[in-house]
């Protein structure tokens, strides 16, 4: 074999190394699984890292209850195929309080995602949680370590991160503290797509164009995924050929008009994009530093 490893080979090797390091050193790790394309790549890499053994940790889905129906079906299928335990956690306090993405915006996200995640990590005493975040996604993510230390209250202190030198990761923590670990840190959106294509990694069908019922809201196409969708006066769902670049809660995730029905077409379209990936996420556009604030509060 050639001594020149390809770019994707190097990224893959680094990710496998990170997975194994956590398995070797952490007491009770878990992998956050959000069903999107990054999660799919992360799951694929985790399986590769330990093959022929299954990954020695469970999957955790922090469920806001407002994901696309296609996502739930896909999640259950993938967990079973990987032979991994799937833990689904819903913040019941948020459900009881009647929080929903239509009326409560950022508060809904904080309670159902951030607080839900902290609840789940505390309940199971996980000391390390893999997340699929990438440094190219957002400016504060670009400053994140691969092994990111979190305090007992899950806080992130960007002024005081552990130096990460060579491939030597310091995983030591005290009781109650934890690490968030990002095996995809050095991947870009395009790397993710080209790797999905190379490895033939299964994805939720929503990433591919199809006729779906949508309404135009705040300049975005929002899909009417189930009967809970609240229509504004004058809004009439229409069938459009659309797909998603990123997947979250369906009422908060904008679709793009597209004819890309194959991976190759999706990759071509991604490369020609004029907007960054998270342009479609209403929640990220609230303020420049909103991601950083969420991370300080414990968001992954």
């Amino acid at each position, binding site marked *: 074999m050639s001594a020149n490893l390809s770019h994707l080979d190097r990224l893959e090797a680094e990710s496998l190394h990170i997975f194994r390091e956590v398995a070797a050193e952490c007491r009770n790790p878990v992998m956050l699984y959000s069903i999107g394309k990054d999660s799919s790549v992360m799951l694929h890499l985790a399986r590769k890292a330990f093959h022929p053994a299954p990954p020695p940790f469970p999957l955790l889905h922090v469920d806001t209850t407002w994901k696309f129906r296609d996502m739930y079906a896909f999640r259950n299928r993938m967990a079973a195929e990987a032979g991994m335990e799937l833990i689904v956690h819903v913040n019941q306090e948020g459900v009881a309080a009647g929080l929903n993405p239509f009326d409560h915006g950022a508060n809904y996200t904080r309670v159902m995602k951030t607080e839900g995640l902290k609840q789940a990590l505390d309940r199971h005493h996980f000391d390390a949680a893999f997340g699929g975040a990438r440094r190219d996604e957002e400016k504060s993510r670009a400053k994140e370590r691969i092994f990111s230390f979190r305090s007992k209250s899950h806080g992130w202190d960007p002024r005081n991160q552990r*130096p990460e030198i060579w491939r030597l990761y310091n995983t030591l923590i005290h009781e109650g503290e934890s690490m968030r670990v990002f095996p995809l840190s050095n991947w870009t959106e*395009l790397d993710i797509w080209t790797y999905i294509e190379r490895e033939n990694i299964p994805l939720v069908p929503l990433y591919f164009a199809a006729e779906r019922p949508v309404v135009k809201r705040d300049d975005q196409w929002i899909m009417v995924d189930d009967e809970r969708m609240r229509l504004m006066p004058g809004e009439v769902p229409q069938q459009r050929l659309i797909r998603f670049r990123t997947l979250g809660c369906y009422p908060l995730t904008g679709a793009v008009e597209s004819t890309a029905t194959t991976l190759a077409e999706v990759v071509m379209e991604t490369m020609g994009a004029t*907007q960054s990936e998270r342009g479609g996420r209403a929640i990220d556009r609230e303020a420049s530093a909103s991601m950083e604030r969420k991370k300080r509060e414990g968001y992954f």
Partner: protein
Amino acid sequence: MDTADTNPASMQTLAGTLAAPDTLRVLTCGSVDDGKSTLIGRLLYDSKLLLQDQIADLERDSRRHGTTGGDIDFALLVDGLEAEREQGITIDVAWRFFATPRRRFIIADTPGHEQYTRNMATGASTAELAILLVDAEKGLSRQTRRHALICSLMGIKQVVLAVNKMDLVGYDESVFEKIAEDFAAFAKRTRIESVTPIPLSAREGDNVTGPSSRLPWWQGPALLPFLEEAPSAPGLVETPLRFPVQWVCRPDHTFRGYAGTISSGRIAVGDEVVVAASGKKSRVTAIDIGENSLEEAVAGQSIMLRLADEVDIARGDVLVPADNRPEVTDQIAAHLVWMAEEPLLPGRPYWLKAANRMVSAQVSELKHHLSVDTLEETAGKVLELNEIGFANLSLAHPIAFDPYGENRETGGFILIDRFTHSTVAAGMVDFSLRRAANIHWQSLDVDRNARARLKNQKPTVLWFTGLSGAGKSTVANWVEKKLYAAGRHTITLDGDNVRHGLNRDLGFTDADRVENIRRVAETARLMTDAGLIVLVSFISPFRSERQMARQLMMEGEFVEVFVDTPLDIAEKRDPKGLYAKARAGQLKNFTGIDSPYQVPENAEITVDTTSATPEELADEIIAYLRQNGRLS
């Protein structure tokens, strides 16, 4: 998405990303306000590598936080943290990825502030080339030299000296020449092999992506074209095989695989390998990545290996060729970059992590500091934040190392504080001290068990710790009297007494206190070898050193006695008048006054001198020894 209207900028990214043959890992460094973040922002913007919404964000942020009047403030592209924007500085490394049609780049944009040098070192540890910025108005600063020195120690051989802000000196050639000469003279004395000076203005865009008419005298390259052509650092494929085992895979009794990343060299099915530490041999029968089998794998690949024999191999073992083995040693000489507020104290135990191994280690001797300004070697007892030193380290167990100059992967290590768990140093092995191989334990026929049997007692260390005036020596004295009366063989090591002899050369700085305890702990250990019950009465203010003393003894042999007397009571007693002196400022580094006392967390015995007499407390301690089988 506006798919119809394809963006030429990102099409260029695409072409670059797909076609670029290789990746160059670059670091930007230099002093604060020299314009590092601005340079990267300018590089991305002028290369048309930003997307529309990113440019819109940048324009909005520039109006709100910008420092450039109405113009775009490129630094805001990378300084993404709130605290960074508020203060206009870079706190932590930002990792940026971009590609041109010729090459792919990973840029670590690192902070200039001295306070965040550890983050600069983080960026430097994986880079092949450094862009070292200098402000043309200010010239070389101490921080410029510090960063150049760290780059050199970290093994970066190529430096671009980017003389920035040429617009502010009227694009004056002589200013540039002077800085370039100054730096060349400095770099000549480091391990940096090639320096390319380039005059530019990140803010104005001169000489960043292409030549500028405002620098007509400059015949050399602009920055980006230079980066596209710069040679990559040679990989480690042609270096001898080092495969540190990371994780052992045993899903069932039929499969035993060794997972890990190949640090250097290559490995093929059929190759003979040996375990570096034990010398045990076997042969490679399979190499896999996931479900794919390979015939050969090279440095950088993460693989699963299978061997022909059932050799005992665990995480941290290193597989190597039989004829080219690394040093396996517990004594090394290394350069250290110190990264913690708390200084390095020789003698204090730290965790040392290197290629999948973690062992306890201490600096046995701090040989010298390296002056950032003059590169001179100066003496010193401790290493403070951001200082660079050269030291001998002693490890609790031997591990496999190569000199860092030969192999970055197996020659680098980090030190971790055992209590705070922070990463406190980056270390680079210069060479192993072969002492480990040359000093053998003298085998003695009369051993510690024999001596203890003769005395009909279990050797034990009673370690009394507490503030000055807490009553340690008084209680210890009572314990010893009672043991003596019961026919036991004892000895007392008292802080004051030992300082008159064995430790008379030591003062009361933190470093000297650590050495004080180290010597006393070693002495106590020798005395347990003699079969004695040893009473040690020392303030011993730091947990780390009490822990170190504990680890020198056998299981159960170390009994920590915390003489728990509140400071105000100890101060009222003041048997030697020391508190009065300390309060009057005549005595420096006095525990409890201007030097800390770390209360024991897991002492075997805690005694309270305010509610019982010393004799009663001595009885409590003796009762403990009987209950725990230390006294028959």
